[in-house]
């Protein structure tokens, strides 16, 4: 190629590039795309893709939403690494709104755009304690782990954890919970049994900060769980791999009792995969854990003050909260029930959705999952 030709070609390329960037600028001015990253189970994917996003786009022309989905949060560590790296370099990570368990971890690390009522007006209706616990995350729905039971074989379910433990021993092979590393419903049971032997102060510390020094106090609870091996469903202390398997074991009648996520259970009932003779209830002393799910806007997102903020604010509106409550998800709302459609919230009688007992901080939760795996199954 001669020099003249090369110059001509590069000039043409530059021209073409210039034209295309200005064209895309024009397109962006018309429709702004909000990049949403979801790290969760498929029910949350459905909530966004089938329910929230179409409603948001209908209510807010000029915005488009692109959803990236990571099943079960398999890439949480990589995504956290990417966001940390982007924050260090001060660059846009290409994610505007995150829905996932690691949002509070990002918040604690100072990587989130701090939401205030001034920026996200609908936060005014949200419980202040729940908001504060998010460390920069925006609570947008709640869920709790509940005890599911087969009414045919268990007319009166246990009311407290002690009663539940007694029931399990009296009815060998009829209770199960999934491996804590495979899903939150099994994890909640493990943490609840472990918490039974801890003081209120210790529980609070484990929820709010990394506390390896308290972990030796889990031993009694883990021993209680190990002794349950021969009474739970499955031989030699084996447990279902994930939330879905516990639900399946309940639906097919393999077990009479198990711990399940409130939203997954409600979705299964609605989809017809859970027979009507399976009901859910909460236990006391201590209650099974639950809590809010948080949205996070990365501090480095270019859309933090635009689309991401608009979407987050809309999700907290009564219209969106009604969709979260009544749609396929059946989540708990984060705004007062009085603002919502009464027919949709009728299902919440009997479950105290305002006082959910929180799970541990993720660092402690990871350690508990690891300790459970080395002390309970197959021992």
């Amino acid at each position: 190629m001669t020099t003249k030709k090369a110059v001509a070609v590069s000039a043409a390329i530059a021209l073409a590039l210039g034209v295309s960037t200005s064209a895309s600028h024009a397109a962006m001015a018309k429709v702004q795309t909000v990049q949403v990253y979801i790290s969760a189970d498929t029910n949350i994917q459905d909530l966004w893709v089938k329910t929230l996003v179409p409603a948001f786009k209908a209510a807010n022309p000029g915005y488009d939403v692109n959803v990236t989905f990571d099943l079960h949060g398999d890439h949480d560590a990589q995504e956290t690494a990417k966001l940390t790296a982007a924050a260090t370099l001060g660059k846009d990570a290409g994610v505007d709104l995150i829905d996932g368990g690691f949002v509070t971890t990002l918040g604690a690390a100072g990587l989130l755009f701090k939401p205030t009522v001034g920026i996200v007006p609908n936060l005014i209706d949200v419980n202040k304690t729940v908001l504060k616990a998010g460390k920069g995350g925006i609570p947008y729905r709640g869920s709790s782990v509940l005890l599911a039971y087969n009414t045919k074989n268990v007319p009166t379910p246990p009311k407290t954890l002690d009663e539940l433990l007694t029931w399990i021993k009296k009815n060998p092979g009829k209770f199960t919970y999934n491996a804590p590393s495979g899903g939150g419903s099994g994890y909640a049971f493990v943490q609840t049994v472990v918490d039974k032997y801890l003081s209120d102060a210790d529980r609070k510390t484990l929820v709010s900060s990394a506390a390896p020094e308290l972990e030796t106090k889990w031993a009694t609870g883990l021993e209680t769980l190990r002794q349950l091996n021969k009474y739970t469903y499955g031989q030699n202390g084996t447990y279902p791999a994930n939330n879905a398997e516990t639900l399946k074991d309940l639906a097919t009648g393999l077990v009479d009792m198990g711990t399940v996520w409130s939203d997954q259970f409600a979705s299964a009932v609605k989809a017809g995969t859970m027979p009507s003779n399976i009901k859910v209830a909460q236990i006391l002393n201590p209650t099974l854990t639950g809590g809010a799910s948080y949205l996070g806007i990365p501090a480095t997102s270019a859309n933090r003050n635009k689309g991401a903020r608009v979407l987050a604010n809309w999700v907290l509106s009564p219209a969106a909260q009604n969709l979260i409550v009544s749609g396929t998800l059946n989540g708990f709302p984060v705004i007062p029930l009085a603002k919502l459609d009464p027919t949709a919230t009728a299902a919440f009688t009997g479950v105290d959705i305002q006082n959910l007992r929180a799970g541990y901080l993720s660092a402690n939760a990871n350690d508990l999952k690891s300790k459970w795996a080395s002390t309970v199954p197959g021992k």
Partner: protein
Amino acid sequence: MRSLLRRTGKEGSLANNGSGSSLFGFALSLPPLLLVLGFVGIPILIGFTFSLGFTKGPNRVIAIIGQQIHPKTHWWGTFAAYSDVFHDSRFVGDLVLTLAVTAISTVLVIVIALAIALHQRLVGGRTASVLATLSIVPLFVPVVISAWAIHTFYGGDGFMRSFFANIGINFPTLTSTSTAIVIGSVWTSLPFSILMISSGVQAVPDALIESAKDCGASTLKVISTVVVPLAQTPIIIAGSFTAIGIMGSFTIPLFLGPNQPTMLGVEISNFFGSYNRPQQSLVMAFIVFLAASGIAVLYIWSNVKSAKENGRI
């Protein structure tokens, strides 16, 4: 391509001025080599340094996020993460299970594949073709689907238990046992081995088999002294690929195996994700890597041997 390389190589060795063409040959092989070095070699190296406690540079972010990270204490690093793994009560069980499942499944796969291939070669006919065709089916079923299918088939409320319950036999629940992992591994690995081994067995010339028979050799003798030795290379290749695949499997042991001990593929994922211990998960990955390298050596040896026999090197 291969003949071109051989020609340039030969010219290079014959004539002194051929260094240009041998360089050309080397240059031709460079792109894939660089690709492997860049996208596989460098990450492995970075991972290895992280397992030794090099927490700066490319490992900085993962070292901030991970729990129970051991930064290096000497200029060459530290073995603290290795010590963590070897002292973890879970590790020995996991390693034994991984090696045992790999060995048993591989032997089963080779025996079954060889049986089907020999049946097709020596007996033939309609049943043999049907059997060979059917045995390829698992190749087209995604592993996650087959794992779940096997799970429901052998589960507490599965077909086997329901069927045997009808005739008054209490069939054991096989899910969450190492037996189920073997069943699943054999199911998923069989098609490749059958393709590989039956093509090797088919390639044995009729003349050799017939002349052995004419000399009075029994079928067993024909198999052990003619067919199997001639098909040795594809058998070893099928065996090593199967073993490496099973050793690193994840879905099958996750769905079908017990929670603990579990195969290292699942344990590595647990350590990396659920327990947030990236350094320890890397240590386990290198142990699997070492074990798999042992099998790879067998594969390369068999390849070199067959190349020598064919006069390619």
